[in-house]
């Protein structure tokens, strides 16, 4: 299969029209499957026919993964129909990125073959007793001659029951410390049922179709070759590899907001109240326009961060937690606000719009699954003094290729990713040059405000004492990290507008005014009202895309 537009169109066709109640892979089927705590079998079959897992396998290993931004955009076709279907599939990435990062050639080929063959891998890191604190994990792999013996529990692991292989985080050194854990990559055939007790399925509020499993392992022998990378590098490998997934999973989840917005538009355009469509009531219009702006800003930040991981990989340790923190927060809030204009229709589990209540539940884990938003701020904070110091000393425009999907990207170098950015973040550094640009007059005051806020942030950041940066950092200090993510989002939106083709909606100033106004909110105070003219432009574009069956995100591509 060839370029991304062709692949995306092909996938859309295989999955069919989601609104068609007779489509076994449509919204109605997804909702019915959710009630059974499953995913729709016809949708699963379509994804297998497409060979979806090959999208997660690097081209050098026979797969179709070349560009993260393309992979994310393609997965939005899956997420927009059913997030459970999306996560169960994208979950293959959680395991495999570790293998691509640290595996020996034969381990990499084994994982690649498994995935291109439509089989599944699970990522067994989590232990209920330790949550985000993975360095506290207890599941043990003890050396006994040339073998390892496994003991312990892993819980709430996606796809554990259907996995053909696992990537597992295990303690290989009883003493605490960052070198105490190793990753293991093992075939599920090694899980001898005499030594491995499967736990009952974990049930969840949202993403009910994702099988969350667990296991208790007592004295399971496995060969030494299952270790992934050098012993003791388990946490380090994850810190590199998860830079991909911590940005990619929230980035794919923007498609949930696309659907929530589409359903809300569908409902409010048809519902007549007081002699006119509900969509024309000022309150409803504003909510729709703001949600559209929120979607564009989430996609602008995620596109820029995903492209940066290939163009300037040194900043991945900053961009990944920034995307997870900001995008997850904005998406969750936006769906919540849309539910208010859906009214009672939001609360229904049947009827044409029942998919909305499912999205409202399914979107929540984007804020805590894989890593908590709060933990992302903890990861950003210690890097702030260096980042802010350098951004202040050396402002420079960011490379244009960061912002436009048209430009080609160098190969993704996972083992080359760093655990810290060393202060280097081309996106943040570009804010200091934003006012030198030819900005449309209408957005200039908003940009000036963002730049002023960033200058203030740099000053405060320079004055931070090292002792304030630990895990015990006070809330107002942690808020600085949140403000940093807002600055990154502003820089990404400015870049996307500048790089857009002249006749594109993204080249117009209105959406930029809207997103910059929205960005006043997340960490810098209340968001401001959109000017009438801006709201009109957004609603016009949104309605037009709805009529033409186009996606509402940055790309505006055909949706089946």
């Amino acid at each position, binding site marked *: 299969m060839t370029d991304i537009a062709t692949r995306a169109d092909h996938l859309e066709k295989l999955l069919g029209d989601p609104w068609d109640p007779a489509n076994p892979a449509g919204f109605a089927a997804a909702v019915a499957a959710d009630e059974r705590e499953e995913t729709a079998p016809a949708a699963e079959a379509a994804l297998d026919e497409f060979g979806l897992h090959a999208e997660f396998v690097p081209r050098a290993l026979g797969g179709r993964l070349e560009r993260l931004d393309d992979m994310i955009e393609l997965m939005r076709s899956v997420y927009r129909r059913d997030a459970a279907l999306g996560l169960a599939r994208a979950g293959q990435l959680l395991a495999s990125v570790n293998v691509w990062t640290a595996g020996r050639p034969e381990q990499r080929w084994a994982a690649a073959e498994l995935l291109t063959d439509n089989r599944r891998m699970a990522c067994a890191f989590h232990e209920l007793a330790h949550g985000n604190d993975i360095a506290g994990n207890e599941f043990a792999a003890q050396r006994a001659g040339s073998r390892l013996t496994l003991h312990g529990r892993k819980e709430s692991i996606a796809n554990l029951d259907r996995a053909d292989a696992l990537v597992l985080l295990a303690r290989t050194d009883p003493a605490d410390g*960052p070198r105490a854990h190793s990753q293991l990559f093992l075939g599920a055939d090694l899980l001898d049922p005499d030594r491995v007790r499967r736990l009952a399925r974990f049930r969840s509020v949202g993403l009910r179709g994702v099988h969350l499993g667990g296991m208790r392992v007592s004295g399971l022998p496995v060969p030494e070759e299952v270790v992934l990378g050098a012993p003791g590098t388990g946490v380090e490998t994850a810190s590199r590899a998860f830079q991909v997934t911590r940005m990619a999973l929230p980035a794919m989840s923007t498609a949930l907001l696309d659907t929530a917005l589409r359903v809300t538009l569908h409902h409010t355009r048809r519902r007549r109240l007081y002699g006119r469509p509900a969509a024309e009531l000022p309150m409803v219009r504003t909510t729709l326009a703001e949600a559209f702006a929120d979607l564009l800003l989430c996609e602008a930040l995620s596109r820029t961060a995903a492209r940066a991981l290939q163009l300037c990989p040194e900043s991945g340790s900053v961009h990944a937690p920034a995307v997870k923190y900001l995008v997850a927060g904005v998406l969750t809030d936006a769906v919540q606000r849309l539910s208010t204009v859906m009214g009672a229709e939001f609360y229904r589990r049947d009827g044409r719009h029942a998919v909305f209540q499912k999205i409202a539940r399914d979107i929540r884990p984007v804020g805590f699954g894989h890593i908590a938003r709060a933990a992302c701020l903890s990861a950003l904070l210690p*890097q702030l003094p260096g980042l802010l110091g350098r951004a202040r000393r050396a402002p420079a425009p960011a490379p244009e290729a960061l912002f436009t999907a048209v430009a080609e990207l160098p190969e993704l170098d996972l083992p080359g990713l760093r655990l*810290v950015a060393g202060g280097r973040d081309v996106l943040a550094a570009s804010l200091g040059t934003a006012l030198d640009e030819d900005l449309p007059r209408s957005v200039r005051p908003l940009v000036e405000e963002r730049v002023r806020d960033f200058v203030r942030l740099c000053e405060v950041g320079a004055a931070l*004492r*090292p002792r304030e940066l*630990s*895990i015990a950092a006070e809330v107002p200090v942690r808020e600085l990290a949140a403000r940093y993510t807002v600055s990154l989002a502003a820089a990404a939106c400015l870049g996307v507008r500048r790089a857009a083709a002249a006749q594109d909606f993204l080249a117009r100033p209105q959406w930029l005014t809207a997103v910059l106004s929205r960005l006043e909110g997340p960490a810098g105070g209340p968001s401001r009202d959109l000017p009438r003219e801006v709201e009109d432009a957004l609603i016009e574009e949104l309605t037009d895309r709805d009529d033409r069956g186009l996606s509402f995100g940055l790309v505006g591509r055909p949706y089946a």
Partner: protein
Amino acid sequence: MTTYGVDQVAPSDLQRWLVERVAEYLPDLGEAVDPTRQLGEYGLDSIAVVAFAADVEEQLGIAVDPTAIWDYPSVGELAEHLAAELAERRPQAA
């Protein structure tokens, strides 16, 4: 900006500087940091290690990942390691 003099690559000088620098990250430190003791014993948590590594990188002008501190967990070992790195990078730095 306080840049560490890159001429001073002697491990002993680096060690003296690191002893002072790391103290800034340690809460409630009564005495000077013992260069032979593991930093973890002083309560330098994983997040603070990231900050310390970034700080040392900034001041020395060479890449310092937190993994350097994981692998050379006392100030003495870290100083030896960084001195070797600095000596290696110096010709390129010019």
